[in-house]
């Protein structure tokens, strides 16, 4: 079985992102970047299936500029077999991501496609579902466990207020939630070895896909801060203030 994992390069989750001086874009120059955390869960799930001898090859795919090579090296160091960069300097929205991935999938014919459930930069959470739609494949989003038996994938999904379990025929698309697994740390020797592995680059233009933005950015803004609060020094004072100022009786 062949698994394809899509990975996105995002601003590190510890960075507090700012708007640039002229207000037209985010200030990402010199900011620490890395692999979207949910995508690391997706890679880990693929590696575990390979370790259970249920998968033979894992391919990581990223879409974007040549800078994305760093997260593909990271994926290779985690243990994926090969990497593909679909290169473009255009900003990609989820529908364009799904269309580009579909084109790669038509070439590679994987049995299982894994993605993170959302990217922590644009917080859209759409690419996996859109990709499944375009391929007319079964989908299981927000996966917290995976089991592959007899060419059928059982997926437990995290949903509001509990879980849901689905059985998918392959090929299928699954998006990973954080609880799916704990992604392995990359050891230095593996990182060195990953430098020798090949990353295949495909210019996005060669895939014949419309990647124009459908959502036009009009303005960026920082949210208004909450009104300043106050510190209280005791439980009594807290309860009194809640009652007097907020009309909240505890």
């Amino acid at each position, binding site marked *: 079985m062949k698994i394809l994992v899509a990975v996105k390069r995002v601003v590190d989750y510890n960075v507090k992102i700012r708007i640039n001086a002229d207000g037209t874009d*985010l200030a990402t120059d010199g900011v620490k970047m890395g692999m979207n955390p*949910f995508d690391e869960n997706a890679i880990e799930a693929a590696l575990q299936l390979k370790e259970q001898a249920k998968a033979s090859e894992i391919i990581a795919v990223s879409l974007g500029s040549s800078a994305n090579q760093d997260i593909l090296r990271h994926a290779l160091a985690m243990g994926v077999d090969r990497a593909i960069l679909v290169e473009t300097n255009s900003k990609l929205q*989820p529908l364009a991501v799904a269309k580009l991935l579909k084109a790669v999938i038509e070439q590679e014919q994987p049995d299982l496609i894994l993605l993170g459930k959302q990217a*922590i930069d644009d*917080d859209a959470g*759409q690419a996996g579902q859109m990709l499944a739609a375009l391929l007319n494949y079964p989908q299981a989003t927000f996966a917290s466990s995976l089991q592959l038996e007899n060419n059928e994938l059982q997926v437990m999904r995290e949903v509001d*207020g509990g879980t849901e379990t689905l059985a998918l025929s392959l090929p299928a698309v699954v998006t990973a939630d954080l609880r799916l697994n704990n992604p392995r740390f990359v050891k230095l020797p593996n990182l060195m070895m990953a430098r020798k592995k090949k990353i295949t680059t495909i210019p996005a233009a060669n895939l014949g896909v419309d990647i124009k933005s459908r959502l036009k950015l009009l303005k960026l803004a920082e*949210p208004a801060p909450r009104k300043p609060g106050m510190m209280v020094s005791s439980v009594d004072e807290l309860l009194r203030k809640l009652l007097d100022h907020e009309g909240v009786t*505890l």
Partner: protein
Amino acid sequence: MNILVLAEHDGQQLNPACLQAITAAQFWQAPVHVLLVGSALDTIASHLTNVSGVAKVIKAEAAHLENPLAEDIATLLVSISSDYRVILAAHTSFSRNTLPRAAALLDVAMISDALEIQAENCYVRSIYAGNILTHIQSQDAMQVLTVHSSHFIAAASQEGSAEISSIDVPVPFTQTRWLAAKHTQSDRPALSSAKVVVSGGRSLGSAENFEQVLSPLAAKLGAALGATRAAVDAGYAANEIQVGQTGVMVAPELYIAVGISGAVQHTYGMKDSRVVVAINQDPDAPIFQIADYGLVADLFDTIPVITAAIK
């Protein structure tokens, strides 16, 4: 052209967030239809005819839709899409699963978790865990979106006037089979719609402490329990009560943050709360910057005192 709201229900009751989505749908000043998907919909359909602002309730009823799949709902939405210029739903796990699939089939971009609708194709939504607001304009003729329900008031009940109709259901998608669902049984109110939320962080130290310290307070307040991702990852609390960027969004009247440092990934999910109380031993904890009332204190000493003080 009409506006379609995809409703979510459990077979018995409507998810209350749908009432907020119905309010959001009024923005376009066009007839609002509500689509119900399931196997036995009469009770919920007649309830919906009594919701203000609903012109028509559409039932898509079939045995295989008892636990509907995103695959089937998406084809259903596409089959009726020519009557609609907007398809929207509340931003819940149900619609987050379903609407992107429908949007891709319709070849339109989707707007996730719109905070505000500013014009017929212009929206405000947040990125980077709520750190940045983007104002965006959709270039597509059709709009597909989920809305941040706490930013819209719930549609009221009124004397019913909406009509009920049924539609043909497309053939089932057979590559996916629904196997099971597990709903966490709890006497507490649902987290996403609770009036009071008591949330705990990693400082609770253990699952036992989480339960023993916070449960009596939550019980006295009739509150839902919430948790940070750190507390969930440490195994102190169940994942479904995680509040934040990758968990549940809450906007209660009162949010009590206990031993929570206040990482943006957490505060994203609770900063719309009306009153925030934070109790933390660390005076520099970022939670105090967004709290209305902050108390620097040991939670193990303080929470029992607060619990005892409540009548």
